[in-house]
């Protein structure tokens, strides 16, 4: 610091320059806010508002028609008496517990397979990705036809393979098979999307690492466990978080294939929320179920973050 650059420390009235600088700063801020305003207003009106409203509704009684009434913790205690809620809670956990690892393994398997130099690789990649982009309604109809208990080709094949007609799975119509059917459908529908993410992850792994491993003497299996899988850590984390969240929010697959049935065997939380809100018009209670779902997803995601952070830090 030299004397010439040192400013006098005494307070002085704002000069014209200082005032105009302040106005320019405010102008800049306004310009910036005006750019994000359209998006933020849309978000506030259509997302943030309803979310806050739903939070409040969880402690209200409202049928959408009559005036809203304060309910206190009524809706909360109702959860424990509601057998459909308890069934849908566990069904959602089972669905997520099965769908996440299955989709993950299938997507990774497909990605590894379609990352090799195989014949018509792009064609097979498209085939694998297709279910994800295809209309859910269309593929669900086809799926229901394929897995129809009496006339579906899948059961016909099983029958010709010698399965006793009495033992043939009843798929979506059977109490024990309905959830499995929904899980299979979801895995098949979503694995193409996560395959693409895994493919990107695989292509990000330097080929030199595999060459170094070849020279170190690793077998294909050892290379997979010791190099591919650890290198895909961040990808697997992303995929598992996305999958968990979408699995907890499952609705459309259930709606198209089983409508929650038979009985409550495939009833899941979001389907229950839908029924309570728009079939029974108990908007307060359905908001309470939604609140439970929110904390469930939040809790699991936080745990995933905690578990993976260490692993993340270890990777370059």
């Amino acid at each position, binding site marked *: 610091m030299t004397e010439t650059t040192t400013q006098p420390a005494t307070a002085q009235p704002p000069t014209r320059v200082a005032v105009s600088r302040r106005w320019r700063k405010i102008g800049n801020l306004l310009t910036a806010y005006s750019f994000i305003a359209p998006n933020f207003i849309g978000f506030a009106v259509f997302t943030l508002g309803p979310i806050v409203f739903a939070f409040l509704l969880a402690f209200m009684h409202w049928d959408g028609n009559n005036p809203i009434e304060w309910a206190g913790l009524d809706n909360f205690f109702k959860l424990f008496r509601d057998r459909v809620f308890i069934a849908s809670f566990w069904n959602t956990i089972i669905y997520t517990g099965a769908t996440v690892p299955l989709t993950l393994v299938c997507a990774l398997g497909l990605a590894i397979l379609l990352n090799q130099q195989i014949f018509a690789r792009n064609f097979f990649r498209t085939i694998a990705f297709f279910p994800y982009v295809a209309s859910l309604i269309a593929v669900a109809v086809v799926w229901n036809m394929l897995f129809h208990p009496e006339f579906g080709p899948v059961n016909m094949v099983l029958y010709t393979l010698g399965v006793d007609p009495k033992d043939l799975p009843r798929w979506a119509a059977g109490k024990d098979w309905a959830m499995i059917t929904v899980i299979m459908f979801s895995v098949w529908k979503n694995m193409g999307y996560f395959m693409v993410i895994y493919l990107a992850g695989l292509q990000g792994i*330097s080929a*030199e*690492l595999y*060459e*170094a*491993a*070849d*020279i*170190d*003497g*690793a077998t294909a299996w*050892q290379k997979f466990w*010791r*190099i591919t899988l*650890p*290198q895909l*850590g961040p990808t697997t984390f992303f995929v598992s978080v996305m999958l968990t969240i979408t699995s907890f929010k499952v609705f459309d697959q259930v709606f198209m294939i089983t409508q929650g049935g038979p009985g409550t065997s495939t009833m899941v939380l979001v389907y229950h929320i839908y029924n309570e809100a728009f079939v029974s018009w108990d908007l307060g209670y359905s908001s309470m179920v939604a609140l439970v779902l929110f904390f469930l997803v939040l809790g699991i995601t936080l745990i995933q973050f905690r578990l993976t952070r260490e692993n993340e830090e*270890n*990777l*370059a």
Partner: protein
Amino acid sequence: MAGISLRKLRKTFGTLTVVHDIDLEIADKEFIILVGPSGCGKSTTLRMIAGLEDISSGDLVIGDTIVNDVPPKNRDIAMVFQNYALYPHMTVYKNMAFGLELRHSPREIIDKKVNEAAEILDIAHLLNRRPKALSGGQRQRVALGRAMVRSPAVFLLDEPLSNLDAKLRTAMRAEITKLHRKLDATFIYVTHDQVEAMTMADRIVVMKDGHIHQVDTPQALYDRPVNMFVAGFIGAPQMNFFPVAVARGGTSVRFGDRELPLPARLSEALPPGSADRACMLGLRPEHFHERLPVDVDPAMTAEMDMEVELAEPMGAELHLNGVLGGETVIARVSPRCQARAGDRITLIADLSSAHLFDKKTEAAFGN
């Protein structure tokens, strides 16, 4: 024990042949360097030796065994990659221990070998770090360490110093040379840097376009290049070439309107009937002098005028870039020389050290 023979080794990618039937004998414990410009096939050759590339034809023999179809892990080799190829998710220790773990070596042996190598390479304090927390030079050492712990008979090094800064490169050059002596193993080293090749190798293999041009000791390559490519490639600044024609029955050459004497070594090597043969005369930068050196026969010199375009002081010497008889030339002179850009200076060319190449075939005479 771990001598290596390349017998008519060829590599093709589709219709493109990148290595053309090369023959090379590498002695046990030799430090051999494959050098050449980008795309000359040196890395491909190394990768064939490593087993990372299939051999299109020919045989690769390590020891007494043809290893064409032997997987890399069974060839008793270790490799240091250009980008180090360290496993990012493993610590330095794990990186170095990985190969031994895969071979189910006992814990204590792994521990001992890793620590020994780390000690030699001065990376013992880094064993718990991950590669991303290391500098380029440290990563280089870890890559060397990973190769060392396996105690292979052959070390393959693919441009291992190309990612280091100039100072570190010079230091690592010396370290690798010492390491070779200490480890008592065969080193096959690929580089495009002729300085690395000259300073480290027992023998240098000069390659271009998938062919081996010359295999010899560094000094022999420098003194007796077999063709213009080798002459131009080895030596920095590179050799100067002048288009000349053979005159006076081979005792001199014509360069423009001047006649330059040829040493007997070259005139005797010219085949009969070489009168007027178009040749290239090669003179290294250090064979130009400001005044006649005492040990040079005056009859074997010629005074030549040079227009200096650029003077590069190197400290111990001065590089004069300019034009001499219409040809671009670099002369290496004493740093006391006062010539600067734009000056005209008379230099004495020492033709007793000249090289002569056939203009058409580019092959050297008299080597």
